[in-house]
């Protein structure tokens, strides 16, 4: 897992091209279609809860966060618990703070407009696909294109909004995605992206710590807290382990 860090010297500005955005969109397309299954579900639930098509589409286009939108539909009613809906959304999305932080070494090489604009479209899926690509670029010494994040994010964005509209207007009933194994598509994609980071032996203990904390979190914490729990456990394990020798491939020191 060869992510660089903000303190590394010799990082110039990144390209930000249409080609890069299209490459990102293409790479994220299969998982964007998987997201669409849940967009249909959201559209359907939103109609049942009395949201107009305009309201459902406003939520999908301005909030654009699958888990929080589905949880919001659970809490939605004629008496709207506004503050708890907003607070729940914030807590469910706290994991994005760490995801954005992990992309900082690349995002600081874009203009603020490009970086903060791209972040609006960042989802678990587009973050993971983009980070995987940038890690591979780094390993191969290839130049990264800064438009990958917004390209992959837009693929998910389009799918999420189109499927919200479909679910709200056309679909009258939805079969369980698990019937076709579609629920597993997300596990498969995130597993493949984890493998794509090519973890080294020194990454093993942090990964085990993350897995253990996520399992405990999944058992005892509500919502998506298990992701934050696992992320912190993995980070802490890496921070507390003794620093690798400067000669090892795991060292964070630049080669002299």
């Amino acid at each position: 897992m060869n992510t660089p860090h903000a303190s590394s010297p010799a990082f110039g500005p990144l390209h930000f091209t249409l080609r890069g955005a299209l490459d990102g969109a293409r790479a994220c397309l299969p998982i964007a279609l998987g997201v669409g299954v849940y967009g249909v579900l959201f559209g359907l639930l939103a109609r049942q809860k009395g949201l107009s098509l305009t309201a459902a589409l406003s939520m999908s286009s301005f909030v654009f966060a699958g888990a929080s939108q589905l949880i919001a539909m659970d809490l939605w009613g004629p008496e709207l618990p506004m503050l708890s809906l907003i607070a729940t959304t914030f807590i469910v999305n706290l994991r994005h703070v760490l995801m954005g932080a992990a992309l900082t070494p690349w995002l600081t090489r874009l203009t603020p407009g490009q970086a903060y604009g791209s972040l609006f479209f960042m989802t678990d899926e587009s973050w993971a696909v983009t980070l995987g690509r940038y890690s591979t670029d780094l390993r191969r010494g290839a130049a990264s294109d800064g438009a990958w994040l917004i390209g992959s994010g837009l693929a998910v964005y389009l799918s999420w909004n189109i499927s919200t509209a479909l679910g709200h207007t056309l679909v009258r009933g939805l079969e369980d995605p698990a019937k076709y194994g579609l629920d597993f598509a997300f596990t498969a994609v995130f597993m493949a992206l984890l493998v794509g980071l090519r973890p080294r032996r020194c990454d093993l203990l942090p990964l085990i710590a993350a897995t253990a904390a996520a399992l405990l979190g999944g058992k005892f914490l509500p919502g998506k807290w298990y992701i934050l729990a696992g992320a912190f456990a993995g980070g802490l394990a890496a921070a507390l382990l003794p620093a690798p020798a400067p000669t090892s491939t795991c060292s964070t020191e630049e080669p002299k």
Partner: protein
Amino acid sequence: MTAPLASAPALETFLTIGGMALATYSSRAAGLALMSRITVTGRMERFMKAIPGAILASIVAPSALTAGPADAIATGITAAIAWKFGNLPIAMIAGVGSALALRALLA
């Protein structure tokens, strides 16, 4: 089509959506806003470098390890295919296919 019995008032609906949008965007922007202001070294740097893998492992762990043997084996197959081919769509199709087959077999 069944009409909903009662819906939330439009003004409250859109205020809530606006609040949710702000909450979500601030979570997306906060990581960069914080990290671009500080220089990380030493332990903090090792912490940050471990985050991507730790997040991915955490997302996968509950669905891979607590949803029964079929999903656990399918996750292993996905990992092997991803390692060999390094191709996301292939790994996804192999994962979904093996999960479907193994769930049917082991149910």
